[in-house]
């Protein structure tokens, strides 16, 4: 059987599959399906320093092969994360990624430092790309701001940094390159696209927040492109996210250049999807005569 092990910034993941931030809680309910300990890594829903309540409902709406969410990142804040969430996550014995965000560079620094100080997380993921916050995507849009938030967090914590980027830019590969230059150890591509549904009866936007972020199978071809084009510009690993609903979608991502994959909304539809993806990748490697998943990372570029 082929090895599923991958490495990001020197940290071993036993397989390349993890949840995408915000789409998977480490709850009793989820444990009904499989243990999060079977995943390559685990990640929390983005936290801010302070408690936040999130956006007014409706917060979600289904779209063709996708869904819009305008959750707005409700979070208990850093204290709650350290006291309540982290102990739960630790119990699974796999690398923990802490997804954090802030309203200012100072916020990003403080929340990252607090998280790193716990000594319990393997990576910090900077969510620079939430389309549901007024300035959420701006971090990933402005080259200077992107560079400086990453550079400063990197300088102030001693664990690897993942930059989670937005596809809502002219060229996400360029932003991935900026992230690499600023010292990011990996990039996570992609967060959702801003979209909206108008309620034609009410004649107004359906979501409470007016707009929401599009995720799901609809965006998969766009996410694959984001990974493919970034792979050509950077050397740091890519976590490929967006519309993965099956093992073959994940294999596409890896062939395009992702070292690992994150699965978001499809966990809602098929609670077993991450486990099926792990098995599917394994079978694919065996069927195609590969010894390790590492052999296929970026393979689609050979002839490109």
């Amino acid at each position, binding site marked *: 059987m082929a090895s599923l092990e991958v490495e990001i910034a020197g940290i071993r993941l036993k397989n390349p599959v993890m949840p995408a931030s915000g789409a998977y809680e480490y709850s009793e309910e*989820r444990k*009904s399906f499989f243990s999060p300990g079977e995943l390559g890594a685990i990640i929390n829903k983005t936290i801010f320093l302070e408690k936040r*309540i*999130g956006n*007014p409902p409706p*917060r979600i709406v289904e779209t063709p092969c996708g*869904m819009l969410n305008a959750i707005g990142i409700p979070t208990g804040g850093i204290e709650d994360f350290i006291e309540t969430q982290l102990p739960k996550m630790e119990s699974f014995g796999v690398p923990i990624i802490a997804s954090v965000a802030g309203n200012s560079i100072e916020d990003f620094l403080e929340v990252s430092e607090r998280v790193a100080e716990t000594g319990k997380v393997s990576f910090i993921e900077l969510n620079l790309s939430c389309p549901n916050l007024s300035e959420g995507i701006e971090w990933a849009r402005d080259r200077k701001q992107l560079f400086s938030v990453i550079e400063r967090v990197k300088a102030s914590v001693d664990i690897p940094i993942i930059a989670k980027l937005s596809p809502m830019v002219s060229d996400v590969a360029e932003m991935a390159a900026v992230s690499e230059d600023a010292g990011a150890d990996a990039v996570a591509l992609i967060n959702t696209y801003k979209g909206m549904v108008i309620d034609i009866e009410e004649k107004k936007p359906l979501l409470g927040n007016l707009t929401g972020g599009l995720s799901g199978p609809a965006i998969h071809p766009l996410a694959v492109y984001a990974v493919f084009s970034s792979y050509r510009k950077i050397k740091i690993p890519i976590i490929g996210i967006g519309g993965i609903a099956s093992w073959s979608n994940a294999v596409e991502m890896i062939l395009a250049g992702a070292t690992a994959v994150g699965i978001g909304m499809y*966990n809602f539809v098929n609670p*077993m999807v991450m486990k099926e993806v792990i098995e599917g990748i394994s079978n694919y490697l065996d069927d195609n005569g590969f010894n390790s998943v590492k052999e296929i990372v970026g393979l689609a570029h050979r002839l490109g």
Partner: protein
Amino acid sequence: MKVFYEKAKVISLKRIGDSYLEIVLENRNIARWGRPANFVLIKGWENYDPLLARPFDIVQADGETGRFMLVIKVTGRGTRLLAKLEDKSEVSVIGPLGKAIEDFSISRIGLLVRGVGAAAVVLLAEKARERGIEVYTFLSASTGSRLVCRELLEKYSTEIEIATDDGTIGYHGDARERVSAYLDEPGFDRLYTCGSRRFARFVKDMDKQGRIEGYLFLETYMACGMGDCHGCAVGKATGEGYYLVCKDGPVFRSSDVVID
């Protein structure tokens, strides 16, 4: 709580009137563990459109036969596909979901329901009666053919009053007027409502006035059904944040939540 993600076999599918379905499904775990106020997420089609599974209340659950029943109003793309299911085909089901009603230390409840909202309270009526609780049901609809779960509710209720807006069956008018007649005598320990925003406001009012303990079965758009997506938010009455209907509900004390 343990949640199952399994296949369920379609045992029978009956169309009721022009817009309702009664589906009996076979799955031991749902049938065994389904409790009052629990719901399931059902997906009865392949492919990604519609993308999300659809939530429905567990109307009947029989641990011995391994069967459970849903009553579904055909309204949109997902329910139209469910209406086409063939016998012996399989659907995927996630459940049981939601916080079940477990506390039966009461002696009399009222159920005020309208349209397909009736589906939410059948199992509650059944289990309450099993425990010797008196169940007063007020079943309403715009017209007789839209009365849902009538036979089951007749079976499980101590007393049932039917009201239709057009008077085709039962009381000609608003079911709230019938409830009011019972509020003081015999009175209810709890009044549950489902299926009408006006009813919910009424129950909230009565609760506020201290005349009953009011409970609302709430419905929102849902994606995950188990607290991951935070999509099913309903405002806390305190104004500070939100409950999740799937995990904190679907039943809420009327004074705890904001409804509009």
